[in-house]
């Protein structure tokens, strides 16, 4: 492997974030993540003495802007640089907009949008001084395809895609690429609430005939982090078995 990268994966304690943290650590990279609470998975990583120099974790709420900023600075302090940010942290409150509380709306704005903006800002500052970097937003197919019960979540993911395009224009001249990956429905904690009939409907509408899982997203992330993607920026890559076509 070429030189290991220093990568932040936001929201890496469960679901897709956990899968990406495991994958990137397994590839020999240095990985930093945070989540609201420390899970058993995180405890296991922190107990491994081999990972002490390659893994950094903090527990805080993504809505806390001050903690977001100090986290990025702590990562830079520990590893001396920051090569990539994978903006994965997100919250989804499922339900009709007419019945969604303003508290839940604000929480999704704070975590899915503001935290993402602040992490991208703080990371891009370091990457500008380095003259290189890679930012990958984790979006969702629902940013482009309507889905009943996910209106606010969809709006926040559509916002990330707008951020991706404009930030790519802003930072491209300094060797910083910004792209997004839009997974379809995945077998993760966030899709646990799907009923059997909803799952069957998704599978029927998917040309490749199954619901994806987190391991389907990893290879796309690998590619976007690699020199093979050196001429790709401002793009949204959908990984959903064709369900949205």
């Amino acid at each position, binding site marked *: 492997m070429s030189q290991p990268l220093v990568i932040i994966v936001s929201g890496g304690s469960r679901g897709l974030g956990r899968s990406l943290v495991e994958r990137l650590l397994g590839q020999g990279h240095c990985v930093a993540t945070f989540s609201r609470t420390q899970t058993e998975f995180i405890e296991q990583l922190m107990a491994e003495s081999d990972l002490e120099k390659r893994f950094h974790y903090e527990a805080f709420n993504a809505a806390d802007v001050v903690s977001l900023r100090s986290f990025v600075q702590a990562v830079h302090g520990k590893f001396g640089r920051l090569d990539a940010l994978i903006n994965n942290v997100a919250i989804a409150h499922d339900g009709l907009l007419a019945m969604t509380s303003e508290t839940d709306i604000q929480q999704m704005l704070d975590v899915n949008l503001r935290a993402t903006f602040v992490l991208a800002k703080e990371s891009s*500052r370091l990457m*500008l001084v380095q*003259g290189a970097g890679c930012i990958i937003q984790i979006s969702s197919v629902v940013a482009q395809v309507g889905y009943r019960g996910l209106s606010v979540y969809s709006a926040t993911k559509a916002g990330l895609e707008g951020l991706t395009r404009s930030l790519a224009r802003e930072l491209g*001249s300094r060797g910083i690429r910004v792209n997004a990956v839009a997974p379809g429905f995945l077998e993760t904690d966030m899709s646990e609430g799907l009923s059997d009939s909803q799952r069957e409907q998704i599978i029927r509408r998917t040309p490749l005939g199954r619901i994806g899982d987190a391991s389907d997203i990893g290879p796309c992330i690998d590619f976007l982090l690699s020199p093979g993607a050196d001429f790709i920026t401002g793009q949204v890559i959908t990984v959903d078995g064709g369900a949205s076509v």
Partner: protein
Amino acid sequence: MTEIRQSVEAVVHRVLLDSGRATIPLSDDDELAQTIGLSSLDIAVVVVALEQQLGIDPFRENVPTVRTFGDLVTLYEDAVKH
């Protein structure tokens, strides 16, 4: 020359050199964009590099009007004092 002025000048010079541009002696009236040739991204790099060196960023909470090299130096000297 104050230490802060030296730091600001050194960072500006490094930004120019890193992008293949020649450095010039800097005076207070030199406009950051028109005279020195710093783009908005260059200024962002200067601000971050100074934050890494001095531990302060006067642009964090609001964006003051900074037109000349002298404005920039004064901004950082005032920030260090407070």
